[in-house]
């Protein structure tokens, strides 16, 4: 198990119901982590519209995640 710090923005934050959390997971990539969260919390945004930043660097969802990583999930936003 690895422990990760996760932050959510915009529609994802709303659907998850909180801004950040620390959780334990067996997911090996950002994609696996997102799929796990999407399933668990019924997040409706398709994975191809979600960006993940790992330790403040924008990464592909296929990027492996490590114990202690800070992951930020970012959906596109159009309001103005």
């Amino acid at each position, binding site marked *: 198990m690895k422990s990760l710090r996760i*932050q959510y923005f*915009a*529609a994802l934050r709303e659907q998850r119901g909180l801004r950040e959390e620390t959780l334990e997971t067996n997911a090996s990539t950002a994609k696996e982590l997102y799929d796990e969260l999407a399933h668990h919390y019924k997040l409706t945004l398709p994975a191809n519209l979600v960006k993940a*930043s790992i330790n403040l660097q*924008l990464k592909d969802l296929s990027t492996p995640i490590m114990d202690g990583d800070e992951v*930020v999930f970012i959906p596109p936003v*159009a*309001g*103005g």
Partner: protein
Amino acid sequence: MFRLVTEPIQGPLIDPEESSGAVVVFEGRVRNTNEGREVIRLEYEAFDPLATQEANQIIEAVLKRYKVQQIACVHLVGSLELGEVAIRVEVASGHRKEAFKACSAVVDEIKKRVPIWKKEHYVDGESEWLNIQAPPTDDEDAFYARQTRLPEVGAEGQAKLKAANVLVVGAGGLGSPALLYLAAAGIGTIGICEAETLEASNLHRQILFAHEEVGQPKSLLASERIQKLNPFITVNEHPFPLTRGNVGELVQQYDIVLDCTDNFETKFLLNDACVGLNKTLIFASVYQYEGQLFVVEPHGPCLRCLWPTQPAAGCVGNCAEVGVLGFVPGVLGTLQAAEAVKRMLGLNTVASSLILIDLVDLNITRISVAKDPACPTCGEGEVDELWWEIHPDSLDQLSQFAVVDIREEEELETEPLPIDADVWLPMSSVTPEEILSVSPGNILLVCRSGMRTARMANAFSEAGEKRVYSLAGGLSTLRRLQGPN
């Protein structure tokens, strides 16, 4: 209408209707002093027919803008004695408020734009031609005194700002503070691209405007507002929606573009145009209490490095759907202006970073973005368009579709469809099977803005159904294609 005359002016000029609750009359007279000098008579000279043509255009525009019933104006040319009437304007309208405003607007615009010149004869025997189009006499340097004091600005920095051209697309929640700060900073040329008219629901965040202006075109209002704030700059109005057909030509005229829009379609359109033309593009978007800021510099990472495919309209909520507090676009729009001004002064900017701002906790997260070699716009990739979104250039192109109006009953009454739909199937009660049974061929869904239909077409597409399309822009696209008649 307008007339130039050589005989003394006599009113009335108009015959008010029974519905005219207000008639405002203005007379401009020859005054015995001007700027401390004693005047004995005046001479007016006009360049006709241009003067008449220009004045009539002004009257047409004011009639339309303030929705008054009648406007007439007469201007005297030749030699005028003290107390004689040089110009008379009459406005008839249902209510007094519009009549006063329209009358004032006609006089202001005529003095500014119509080629009529005035020569003053003074008591001491001297005389002088006056420039009616008087430039502001205030001290331009005094306007910028507090910012030129900064070592990074100075006279040199101020000159750079004056030489700059900035296009602001969208005069809304983001555009309001952005336009005000750009104008106040002295950006020499500011373009405003905005096609909408002001609605009451705009005002809690669109602080450029006033409640009494509801119903008027926002590009015009915004331009007047910032021109009043700073008379030393040039403001261009572009009162039309941005399309694939006009984006390049518009962006080409500017150095920096601010995306202050609220939809993915325009954001991606601007991204692709600015990358192609090597322009700096400063994006901002808001969602409830948070916002995103992203600056695309020439040769740097662009919006499609982040999101290669334009997300469907309505896949995440906009301000109208999920709500927003006014200060959220206020902060983000201010940051857009700050990025533009900093760039011109050579200060640090946030290029190559996506800035996420949460205004509840006041957290700012800065994420590095790298250029994607496979980016469809700035890299080797190909743009994968939303195949089901239709951007027609003429109404004829719709004939290949069965057109389905999916709006609700109450919407039909307030805004009838400008074309005849084949079927009306309100979204709230329709099933996918009912839509597919409309026609064995291609089906085009239409709603007010194109958002609901985008969601529906996307859902059909994901279910493997490849003949249901969405009309991008909805009703406004139909109105644009139909033209003014």
